């Protein structure tokens, strides 16, 4: 069964590739082995039509560009053909080092669906005559993982269709429904984001893929929007997380041999009687205060005074929250 079906489909592809005229279903049935039937028997004819529909669907699933049209204005029935130009992979003259890079790239996917797509894509390149060294390595292997929303969002961005999804931000209790015209997907420092026009906010927004709850629903027609020209996807995600300048200088005393993490961050270290005096660069007093509180009694802040006060305040809060028998530690 399966073998005759595959045989029929290979013959169908060859037949439609070889014809310049559009061939109707009846002409195909009379030509390609496996479609023999009695067109005057309604049941037999129905069975043929179902079979032919399934076969067409299978070719399209595989990506075979099946063209529909009529051979002449007198034809009422649609015909089919495959243009070789549309069917064939164009020539890709890859140098050996380039082919090796493609071979490595195809192995990076940890996501099953994309891994399969990458290896079938690579198989086509090899069928076009590209030789890929399976042993090649680059010295550094990036591990490429994606969130489940990646596939639907890239598909929607490519077809310019709107999407709806449920989005959960930890600070907010319940997920919210968001409606987005997705322009593209960005990998920024190992995390995935989608950038687009938020239909409810009427503004550009980024969403982290890992915060999308459940399925992404693709809605409405294709080509429903046009992303801005000269769009730089990265800039929308990177905007808020650019480099931070550390202009402030704090002085802290650290017990000998302790707080190794803080020592790595310090720009200067001078041994003293009570311990080592470190000079630590910072941008924000509150943030540095939290870091320093983490080191507990291994660190004492000497300057600036506002940092000293912030640390003392935090430490008092910690003690209060962890009082034995304290009600603060018990959920109301």
């Amino acid at each position, binding site marked *: 069964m399966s073998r005759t079906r595959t045989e029929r489909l290979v013959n169908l592809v060859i037949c439609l590739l070889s014809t310049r005229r559009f061939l109707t279903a009846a002409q195909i049935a009379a030509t390609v082995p496996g479609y023999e039937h009695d067109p005057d028997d309604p049941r037999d004819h129905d069975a043929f039509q179902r079979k032919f529909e399934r076969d067409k669907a299978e070719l399209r699933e595989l990506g075979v560009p099946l063209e529909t049209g009529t051979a002449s204005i007198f034809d009422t029935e649609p015909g089919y053909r495959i243009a070789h130009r549309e069917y064939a992979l164009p020539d890709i003259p890859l140098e050996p080092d380039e082919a090796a890079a493609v071979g490595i790239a195809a192995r990076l996917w940890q996501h099953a669906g994309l891994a399969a*797509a990458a290896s079938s894509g690579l198989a086509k390149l090899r069928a076009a005559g590209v030789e890929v060294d399976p042993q090649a390595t680059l010295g550094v292997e990036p591990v490429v993982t994606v969130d489940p929303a990646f596939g639907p969002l890239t598909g929607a961005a490519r077809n310019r269709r709107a999407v709806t999804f449920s989005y959960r931000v930890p600070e907010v209790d319940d997920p919210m429904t968001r409606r987005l015209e997705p322009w593209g997907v960005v*990998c920024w420092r190992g995390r995935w984001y989608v950038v687009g026009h938020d239909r409810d906010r009427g503004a550009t927004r980024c969403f982290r893929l890992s915060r999308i709850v459940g399925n992404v629903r693709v809605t409405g027609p294709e080509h429903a929007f046009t992303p801005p020209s000269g769009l730089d996807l990265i800039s929308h995600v990177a905007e808020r997380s650019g480099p931070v300048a550390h202009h402030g200088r704090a002085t802290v005393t650290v017990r000998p041999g302790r707080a190794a993490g803080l020592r790595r961050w310090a720009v200067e270290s001078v041994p003293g009687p009570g311990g080592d005096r470190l000079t630590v660069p910072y941008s924000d007093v509150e943030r540095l205060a939290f870091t320093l509180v983490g080191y507990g009694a291994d660190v004492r802040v000497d300057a600036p005074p506002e940092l000293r006060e912030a640390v003392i305040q935090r430490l008092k809060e910690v003690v209060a929250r962890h009082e034995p028998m304290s009600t603060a530690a018990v959920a109301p």
Partner: protein
Amino acid sequence: MSAAQRASVDRLGRLLNLVPYLLARPGIALAEAAADLGITERQLRDDLELLWVCGLPGYGPGDLIDMAFDGDRVTVTYDAGIDRPLRLTPDEALALVVALRMLAETPGTGTRDAVERALAKIEDAAGDIGDAPVAVRLPANDERLDEIRAAVEGGNAMRIVYYTAARDETTDRVIDPLRVLMVEGRAYLEAWCRRAEATRMFRVDRIDAFTVLDEPAAPPPGLDLHDVTDGVFHPTPDLPLVTLLVGRGGRWITEYYPCEDVRRDGDEWLVTMRVTDLGWAQRLLLGLGPDVTVVGPGELVERIRAQAMTALDQYN
């Protein structure tokens, strides 16, 4: 689509690919082709037998796909018009283009130029669909990573000065490198650590210094590499369990650290997570601010309280 339909589509794709594949490699040995295509020799023979009865309408001897066999070697002598592979599907183009962009962005690969040339050619061949709506930016090209990669490729053991955040200490170790990898935007050196007598994932940004030793790397044979599909840190049941009461402003930790359980109770969340080390947990939790209160274990609560009180004494 059912599994049977999927299998049928897959086989059709393989057959349409096989003709141009063989056309490009006249006289290839069947065993070599089968290995290359990732199928058994038996499957390959079945595929060839099937192709042999396919061809152009008419289906006479001159219309069918033809092959010449010479012992175990095969040459396609007539292709019936399937002289090229099928064009890339949108998913295939996306998978290759995004992976190449990822490679091009990976610091320290040393072959960025080849990757970028390959990327341009694949994008070009894929046409419209090669213009994948996906951008990739990893941390900037890092000199340290480049040096480490070169050292690892040299194949020798290394001595490293490494900062262990879990214990907040910097140690000297001799390691036998296994591989360098990027996971979630961070570079790691996986190696056999002679000090720990185990494989370890060393974060490259925490290797403060290194020297290449005058002896070849000799990791014990048969080591299993870390499975990093789901990230680098996989909590194991033997690690201490910590329970926290987390306010709204501290909920971000549930995204940042793997948690065992998150129970929502109004504004307060009851979060349990496993930690490698109570000392690390103490530093982390002391520094998390007013939105996090440690509920258990009692030992950790007491340590945090005692630590904070001793620290306060320094200011009196």
